[in-house]
């Protein structure tokens, strides 16, 4: 194919990407954000599939059959198993405006600059060669599609140099647009999601063409001689396991993955979609890996890493080959752009800024300039590495070496979220140990294999010492080099992290951060303020203004306390700064303008305690408020109902002076009845309010329960007779006296008798009032032969306005609630049982005074 056509297509594609990102940014500015959609988020996670996997999977499959799968199984497992872990990370990152993985780890361990810087350095060492690998992938893809690979031209004539610069431009335009690095990059994410679609479509199109266009379906393809190696099981189970674990970590820990998954997340709910959407994406992009490997092997093509391009060319489909090239380009550029955005933020905030914070004046512009410069430098470094390393082994194996580097963040990251005992010293020591072992067992051997170190370094070992052999450290045998490296680096990393953390208890600041991270899902966590000292709001605002500008700072501080600042405002200011310059620098900046009191670990515990107490008190107040609202709304309803009848019949009487006498009498009776109901209701509401507020008068004296029962029976007599019901009283002789308010006790018994009278069948009613002594209690029970109270409603009927039964009984719905409160005030209890009469049995149990309290 003509080189001009390929180059033209590539640049047209990059231009289209610019246009798309710019359009998405404009849409977002107009309030119609694209990245508010869960599938855009899900697709953006596809940046995981870089050129290394786009071209390399087929290569691995051709060489080792299913050996390519772990790179995809790992992320799938991670999304399914570590879903809650991701949610915690996202929650923490949003609450504290975390800008990168380095910021996350540094922030957790006491806002440590050293730690954040160390994470950044390791990421940088791991990522620069990885970027180089992407450039190399583009270059070799170009060579295959354009047909020839000329001798490497001078750098200024090398297309790759210009590609690197274009990508730097894109990253600056969309990845380092605004100052707040914790804010979402709309255009960037939209472009990345689009790239995910492009590479998936391209790969699937090539796969479909090869399987059904060049061969006669998968059965035909795999039956070809020569295709067999693509179907073999992986040679080494141990390596397989190491690869799965490694890719599990990397899907979270690679700077670009952390960027798209955490920093660019706008809605935790999107994780749900991504939880199955991202694994589905990975599955789709892998379906044709094996067939492509088999096809390339069957046709005897050279260099399996280029099968994706060489196969359509061999099949005569030039346009499809060009599409495959664009797919690879999208895989490479997506990775480079996001990685550059993430790493530039880390380099700027955690390596460069700490050196410049002493300077006064506005720093916002400077921060942006540093970040942009870091992007250009990173891409140029990548390009330089690509030019120098070229075809060396070091470059080809860098994908996994990179993964292993970022896997060193895992102990500190997991500890950050699940272990409050982790300390800065522990994380630093663990990370340092892991990084050294990673370099010694993985990085240096790959450099030695490229011929940049004496070959003897690997075998027989440095200085000829066998126990120092980097791939058989301390004589460890039987592991492939990757598993071996992971065993030593991750194992000792974790062990040192735990051991050093345990050696010394966390400082107050470490303990405070630990609580903020580990308890992030607890509702009370957001209300804890770990700061004591003196600060002025104006100083804080001026500090924030130095980074975000006076106008935006004024907007942020509007409506917040003036004069002396409280801890909450200090934390707010620090969080705002953290979004721009990272947690560690933000901490140092805030400390420079306020007078702080050092907190002791005991203070941290007390602050947590206070926040919890405050929260509980607030929750209780809210629920009381809601109860009060419900009560008022119920009372209103109950008042309006009788009023409705009264008003309606009164208006009817007014409008119809000639109404027939019986009708008139009936209407007047309604007015009387409903007025009585209204008075009853008003009295009972007041009564209940008095009892509940503790303002009711209780005239306690010695009460003879038999006498109280006799009085109540007499009062209820008229009502019972009216309903044609028979009352039977059974009382034990000689019941001891109670200490109680006689009127209140009668009120309870009368309420129970009245209820029984209302519910017994007309004319055939039977009601029984019994009194006896049982244990330390005097008991009174009212039985009836009414419909009874279903077991499910036996507690409900004691709630206000919750009358039992399917139809409304006459009554206010307050009688039983009042009775229960009276009985409880007397130290007793009231409940419902089945009655031997067939209906309900209301039992009241009242405690007898203990001997030493016998009435004087």
């Amino acid at each position: 194919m003509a080189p001009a056509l390929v180059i033209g297509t590539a640049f047209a594609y990059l231009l289209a990407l610019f246009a798309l990102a710019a359009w998405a940014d404009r849409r977002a500015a107009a309030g119609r954000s694209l990245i508010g959609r869960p599938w855009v988020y899900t697709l953006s996670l596809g940046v995981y599939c870089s050129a290394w996997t786009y071209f390399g999977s087929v290569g691995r499959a051709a060489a080792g059959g299913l050996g390519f799968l772990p790179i995809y199984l790992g992320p799938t497992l991670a999304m399914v198993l570590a879903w809650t872990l991701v949610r915690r990370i996202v929650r923490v990152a949003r609450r504290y405006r975390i800008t990168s993985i380095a910021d996350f780890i540094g922030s957790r361990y006491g806002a440590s600059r050293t730690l954040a810087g160390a994470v950044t350095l390791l990421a940088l060492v791991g990522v620069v060669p990885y970027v180089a690998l992407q450039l190399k992938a583009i270059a070799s893809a170009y060579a295959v599609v354009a047909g020839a690979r000329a001798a490497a031209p001078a750098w200024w004539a090398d297309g790759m140099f210009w590609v690197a610069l274009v990508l730097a431009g894109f990253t600056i335009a969309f990845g380092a647009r605004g100052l707040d690095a914790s804010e979402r990059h709309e255009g960037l994410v939209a472009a990345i999601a689009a790239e995910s679609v492009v590479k998936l479509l391209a790969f699937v199109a090539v796969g479909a063409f090869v399987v059904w266009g060049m061969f006669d379906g998968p059965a035909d393809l795999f039956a070809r001689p020569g295709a067999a190696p693509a179907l073999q099981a992986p040679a080494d189970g141990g390596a397989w396991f190491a690869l799965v674990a490694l890719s599990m970590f990397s899907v979270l820990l690679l700077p670009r993955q952390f960027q798209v998954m955490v920093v660019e997340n706008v809605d935790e709910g999107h994780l749900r979609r991504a939880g199955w959407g991202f694994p589905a994406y990975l599955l789709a992009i892998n379906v044709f890996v094996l067939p492509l490997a088999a096809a390339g092997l069957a046709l005897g093509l050279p260099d399996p890493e280029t099968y994706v391009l060489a196969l359509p060319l061999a099949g005569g489909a030039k346009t499809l080959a060009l599409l495959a090239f664009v797919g690879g380009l999208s895989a490479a550029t997506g990775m480079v752009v996001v990685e550059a955005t993430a790493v530039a933020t880390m380099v700027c905030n955690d390596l460069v800024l700490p050196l410049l914070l002493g300077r006064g004046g506005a720093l916002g512009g400077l921060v942006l300039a540093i970040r942009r410069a870091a992007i250009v430098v990173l891409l140029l470094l990548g390009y330089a590495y690509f030019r120098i390393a070229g075809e060396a082994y070091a470059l080809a194996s860098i994908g996994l070496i990179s993964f292993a580097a970022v896997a060193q963040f895992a102990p500190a990251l997991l500890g950050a979220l699940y272990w409050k005992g982790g300390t800065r010293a522990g994380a630093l020591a663990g990370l340092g140990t892991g990084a050294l072992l990673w370099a010694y067992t993985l990085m240096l051997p790959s450099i030695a294999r490229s011929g940049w170190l004496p070959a003897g370094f690997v075998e027989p070992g440095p200085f000829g010492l066998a126990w120092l052999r980097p791939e058989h450290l301390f004589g460890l045998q039987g592991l492939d080099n990757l598993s071996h490296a992971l065993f030593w680096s991750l194992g000792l990393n974790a062990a040192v992290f735990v051991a050093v953390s345990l050696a010394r208890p966390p400082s107050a600041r470490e303990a405070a951060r630990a609580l903020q991270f580990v308890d992030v899902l607890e509702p009370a966590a957001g209300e804890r303020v770990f700061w004591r000292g003196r600060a002025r709001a104006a100083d804080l605002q001026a500090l924030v203004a130095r980074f975000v500008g006076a106008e935006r700072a004024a907007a942020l501080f509007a409506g917040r306390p003036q004069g002396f600042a409280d801890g909450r405002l200090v934390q707010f200011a620090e969080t705002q700064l953290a979004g721009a310059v990272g947690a560690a620098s933000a901490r140092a900046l805030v400390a420079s303008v306020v007078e702080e009191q050092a907190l002791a670990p005991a203070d941290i515990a007390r602050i947590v305690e206070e926040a919890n107490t405050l929260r509980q008190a607030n929750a209780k107040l809210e629920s009381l408020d809601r109860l009060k609202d419900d009560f008022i709304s119920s009372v209103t309803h109950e008042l309006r109902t009788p009023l409705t009848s009264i008003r309606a019949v009164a208006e009817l009487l007014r409008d119809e002076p000639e109404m027939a006498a019986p009708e008139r009498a009936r209407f007047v009776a309604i007015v009387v009845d409903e007025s009585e109901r209204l008075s009853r209701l008003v009295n009972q509401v007041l009564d209940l309010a008095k009892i509940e507020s503790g303002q009711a008068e209780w005239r306690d004296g010695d009460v003879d329960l038999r006498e109280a029962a006799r009085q109540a029976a007499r009062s209820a007599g008229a009502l019972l007779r009216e309903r044609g019901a028979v009352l039977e009283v059974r009382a034990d002789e000689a019941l001891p006296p109670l200490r109680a308010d006689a009127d209140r006790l009668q009120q309870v018994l009368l309420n129970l008798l009245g209820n029984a009278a209302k519910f017994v069948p007309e004319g055939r009613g039977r009601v029984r009032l019994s009194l006896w002594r049982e244990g330390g209690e005097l008991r009174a029970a009212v039985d009836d032969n009414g419909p009874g109270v279903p077991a499910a409603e036996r507690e409900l009927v004691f709630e206000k306005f919750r009358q039992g039964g399917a139809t409304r009984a006459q009554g206010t719905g307050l009688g039983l609630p009042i009775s229960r409160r009276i009985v409880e005030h007397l130290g007793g209890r009231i409940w419902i049982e089945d009655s031997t009469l067939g209906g309900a049995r209301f039992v009241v149990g009242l405690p007898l005074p203990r001997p030493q309290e016998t009435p004087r």
Partner: protein
Amino acid sequence: MSKTVLIADDEPNIVVSLEFLMKREGWSVRVARDGVAALELIRSERPDLVLLDVMMPGKNGFEVCQAVRADDSLAGTRILLLSAKGRDTDIAQGLGLGADGYLTKPFSTRELAARVRELMGPTP
């Protein structure tokens, strides 16, 4: 033939007054004491208008209203909600469910009679 009003309310005295009022206005009257009975009568008797109480046992007025509006064969049934719940949100909920009107209890009998006439449309 005069048009029919269904009165659905669980308060006997309110039913008495509404029944008297509606008959005086010249409408035929049916009565239901709870939501379930109301829905059955709406399906069997096809009243032209329902005076529907909101707080009823069985099915509440909102549920009855929703069920009627979900049934295309009952499309012509006018519904006037009567309720002691008078907050704006209650009114909005009732009208949102497709009621033709909402009167707060206690209501003026004259206003109610006028609203019913209005909803029934010109007498044939």
